């Protein structure tokens, strides 16, 4: 980097050249990085005791929240929300706050390397892999393979890299890149979108205007935890409760355990797993009756009394809720999560969305609309469903993939083991990972060419839902790279140039920033933007300064579903795979998410409902446990048709007696010192069954439990003394 002009020199020149308008434009790529300087050689733009702030985008999940990073002497000190970004309006979740523990994690991949599959990154085949070698390897992989046998696996973020790879794949005739994330599997996103397509004729993500509703019915949607865009939905929830001084919104959650979201509900309905759709239909019918007039065809065939006897929700309860729905000014019903991860999940989603049709809230405040497309988006590209991933695994197994590029996703951990991704990887002759951290999938790759951490990176992320405006959040480096890493986009661009021919034509850009600008240039002159500029350099300077570009006014698409109630809705009986007597409910750990386990402060955040830290637990109703002779911290074995795991029990008073639940997020075998060897992965219990929309039926498993003789004391914040009279005798 030394031969290039540094940011410091550039600023000097800029001052001399009287180019010191408020916005600096035209920086070369390397000068866009901020160097970490010793205190002795302070860059002129930093003063002792004063911080420099950079607007960027959070990459801990795909929601695209804006961040402002406080830096001092080139070190990132603290992350705050970007107050002007409409997605999060200055707020962050715990994972966003802890993103610095990824940046400064002691277990990052520090340079490009070649190693034997399955071994630690310390053991290298070739000590001297340089970035030039890396680019050569990527170029050869692109050039020497048939395009149809090249595979790209991407994470849910960042979007600019997905666009770059999509463009590359399209022009060389390779299959489009697949995107996947465990969050999208556990929120059953494909099912939600399919239901929306069936109902509205458009495969878009619905937007639920919780903020303006006075009655919220949520069927398994954990919108205060990890669901879709949790910071935005938390803001909506707060407004629903406190936004209108004349009324306090009422919130009912249907779920078999009290999740963090259900803990905020005014009423928690622990229905029998798999009856969510039926309960929605029964409520619809009773509400239609309470309103008077004809019963819509959608609800005509359901017998509420039958539903009451099947679902463990009493007739009085159903009538009471139906009455609330009939009387509410703006009721809203949200389908999500465990209610959709079932063989009847698509029908359940449609039944719940039909409730919205009954109260006629489509496109209205406090109702359901379709999320606007982000700027520069042609249509909503949903992540791959588990079934699509399964098909891809099949292709890998049959030798249809000769080289696999992996970025931003850890499928060995995030996909259920029963899909056999790890085994299929052995059939791929060459695997190239761009992982920032040594995760399980990276360790099974031949090469790791590490990408920068998100706070060292350029990029952009589209806001998919949660906000009424159309938003493109922008990312820029807040610090210069800590290690010898390189932006994956730059590696691919350089490799394409080296490969020449159609590859070079596909990506005629000198670097990542030029590629991003080629996408931003279309936004110049777009109406209703909160800023605009006459040419691209100024535009992208503003884009950096503000942390993105978005529309000023709401662009929600009013969903038209006049026929939603015209045909009868059926919900089949749910099927459960396996022989055990307990329903099994895996849920995403609210504070860890799918990739937070290597951040020690996230590990030390108590789980909101159990207060357990640093480990995996099994939630079990105290009555059930007593019956089985199980006590707190007893290690039990959970056996499903797909596998078995052992974990300590947490006696959880707020779960159905016939259900056991486990958090997803721990159970890594790699991924650095804070994650590896800690807890177990409940995805190992999930069989490969899919619903109509292609989502895994992760909530449709039955498991057996077996006692072991072991005990493992869980670290929890709450005191054990006095909980279920425990410890009282001894103390």
């Amino acid at each position: 980097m030394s031969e290039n002009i540094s940011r410091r020199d550039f600023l000097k020149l800029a001052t001399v050249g009287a180019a010191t308008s408020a916005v600096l434009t035209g920086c070369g790529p390397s000068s866009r990085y901020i160097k970490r300087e010793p205190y002795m050689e302070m860059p002129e733009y930093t003063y002792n005791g004063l911080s420099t702030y950079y607007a960027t985008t959070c990459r801990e999940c795909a929601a695209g929240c804006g961040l402002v990073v406080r830096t001092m002497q080139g070190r990132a000190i603290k992350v705050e929300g970007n107050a002007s970004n409409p997605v999060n309006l200055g707020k962050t979740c715990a994972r966003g706050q802890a993103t610095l523990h990824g940046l400064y994690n002691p277990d990052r991949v520090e340079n490009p390397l070649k190693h034997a599959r399955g071994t630690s990154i310390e053991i290298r085949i070739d000590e001297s892999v340089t970035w030039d070698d890396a680019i050569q390897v990527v170029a050869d992989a692109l050039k020497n393979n048939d395009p149809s046998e090249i595979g790209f696996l991407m994470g849910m973020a960042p979007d600019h890299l997905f666009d770059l790879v999509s463009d590359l794949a399209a022009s060389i005739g390779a299959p489009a890149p697949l995107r996947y994330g465990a969050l999208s599997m556990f929120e059953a996103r494909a099912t939600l979108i399919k239901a929306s397509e069936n109902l509205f004729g458009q495969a878009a993500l619905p937007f639920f205007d919780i903020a303006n509703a006075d009655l919220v019915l949520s069927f398994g949607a954990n919108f205060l935890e990890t669901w879709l865009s949790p910071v935005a939905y938390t803001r909506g929830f707060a407004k629903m409760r406190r936004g209108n001084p004349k009324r306090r919104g009422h919130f009912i959650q249907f779920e078999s355990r009290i999740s963090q979201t259900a803990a905020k509900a005014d009423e928690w309905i622990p229905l029998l797993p798999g009856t969510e759709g039926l309960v929605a239909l029964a409520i619809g019918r009773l509400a239609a009756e309470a309103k008077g007039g004809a019963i819509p065809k959608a609800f005509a065939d359901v017998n509420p009394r039958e539903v009451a006897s099947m679902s463990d929700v009493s007739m009085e309860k159903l009538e009471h809720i139906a009455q609330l729905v009939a009387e509410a000014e703006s009721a809203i019903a949200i389908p999500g999560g465990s209610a959709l991860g079932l063989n009847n999940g698509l029908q359940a989603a449609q039944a719940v969305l039909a409730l919205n049709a009954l109260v006629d809230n489509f496109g209205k405040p406090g109702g359901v609309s379709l999320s606007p497309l982000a700027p520069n988006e042609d249509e909503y590209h949903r992540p791959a469903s588990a079934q699509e991933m399964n098909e891809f695994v099949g292709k890998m197994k049959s030798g249809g993939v000769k080289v696999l590029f992996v970025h931003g996703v850890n499928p060995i951990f995030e996909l259920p083991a029963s899909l056999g991704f790890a085994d299929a990887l052995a059939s791929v002759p060459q695997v190239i990972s761009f992982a920032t951290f040594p995760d399980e999938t990276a360790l099974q790759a031949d090469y790791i060419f590490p990408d920068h951490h998100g706070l060292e990176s350029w990029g952009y992320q589209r806001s998919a839902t949660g906000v009424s405006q159309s938003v493109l959040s922008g990312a820029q480096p807040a610090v210069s790279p800590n290690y010898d890493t390189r932006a994956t986009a730059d590696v691919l661009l350089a490799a394409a140039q080296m490969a020449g021919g159609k590859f070079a034509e596909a990506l005629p850009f000198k670097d990542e920033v030029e590629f991003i600008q080629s996408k931003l240039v279309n936004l110049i002159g777009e109406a209703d933007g909160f800023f605009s500029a006459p040419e691209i350099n100024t535009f992208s300077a503003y884009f950096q300064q503000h942390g993105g570009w978005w529309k000023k006014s709401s662009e929600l698409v009013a969903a038209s579903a006049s026929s939603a109630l015209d045909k009868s809705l059926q919900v089949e009986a749910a099927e459960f795979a396996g022989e055990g007597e307990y329903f099994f409910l895996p849920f995403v750990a609210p504070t860890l998410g799918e990739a937070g386990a290597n951040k020690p402060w996230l590990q030390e955040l108590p789980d909101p409902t159990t207060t357990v830290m640093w480990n995996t637990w099994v939630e079990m109703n105290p009555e059930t446990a007593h019956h089985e002779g199980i006590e707190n911290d007893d290690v039990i074995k959970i056996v499903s048709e797909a596998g078995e795991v052992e974990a300590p029990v947490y006696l959880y008073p707020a779960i159905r007696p016939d259900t056991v639940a486990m958090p997803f997020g721990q159970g890594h075998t790699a991924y650095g010192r804070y994650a590896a060897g800690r807890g177990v992965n409940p995805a190992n219990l999930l069989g490969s069954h899919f619903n109509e929309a292609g989502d895994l039926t992760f909530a449709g498993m039955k498991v057996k439990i077996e006692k072991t003789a072991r005990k493992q004391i869980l670290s929890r914040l709450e005191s054990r003394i006095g909980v279920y009279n425990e410890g009282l005798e001894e103390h």
Partner: protein
Amino acid sequence: MGIDLNLVGAKGAIAEEAEGKWGMVIDQDICTGCQACVAACAMENNLPFVGEEDAAYGRTMHWIRVERFWEGAYPEIKATPFQPMLCQQCGHAPCEPVCPVFATPHSEAEQINLQVYNRCVGTRYCANNCPYQVRSFNWRDYHTQPFHANDVDGQLVFPFHNQFNPDVTVRRRGVMEKCTFCIQRIHTAQDKAKSEGREVEDGEFTTACAQACPANAITFGRMDDHESLVSQLAHQKHGVKHLEELNTLPRITYLKEG
């Protein structure tokens, strides 16, 4: 601002002082228990993490924690509203008089409870006497445990040290610590206002927990300014103070459901 209790009207003066200078309001009806405040506090104030074993012994260094309790039994069970618990910056703080080395004095200027790290000798009397259980003790030098370091050419390098907030002291073993109402932010805002020849405005800055809170459940500001948002919120009907009967004069008001 000492009050001479022998003067006529001392009772009124005490009531006024009970408001304090800085205060906080936490709305439990919208707190979702998401732990963003806990993480934000840790990142701002150089809090160390202690690991699984020490956490199990109750040695975590959270300056703020979110409490939840259960009411009833299945199926009629309810989680009580999430309750973020942090130092209440009491006007009559039980932790203060028990310190033998005056490491927990009351700030006259800011009217909050201070913790003077370089005076603290680690008797832990203050933590024993705190009815809110919000003080945490450094049982080890957590920041310099070799487990967190990488060996680079024979030297231990701690990448996490890059993240230290230079405005906040890094505490060592044997020292008590607790929430400071982000006093470094208070001072920064005051210095800035002073250099610009004005008063600190309401909402100009806030604590790390309040800044992060996605639900906006935490509000921080001047209690002695009756126009401020925090003061307006604190005087709503459903505001309560915890363990008020101990006459600790807590500076944090909790808003109940409803």
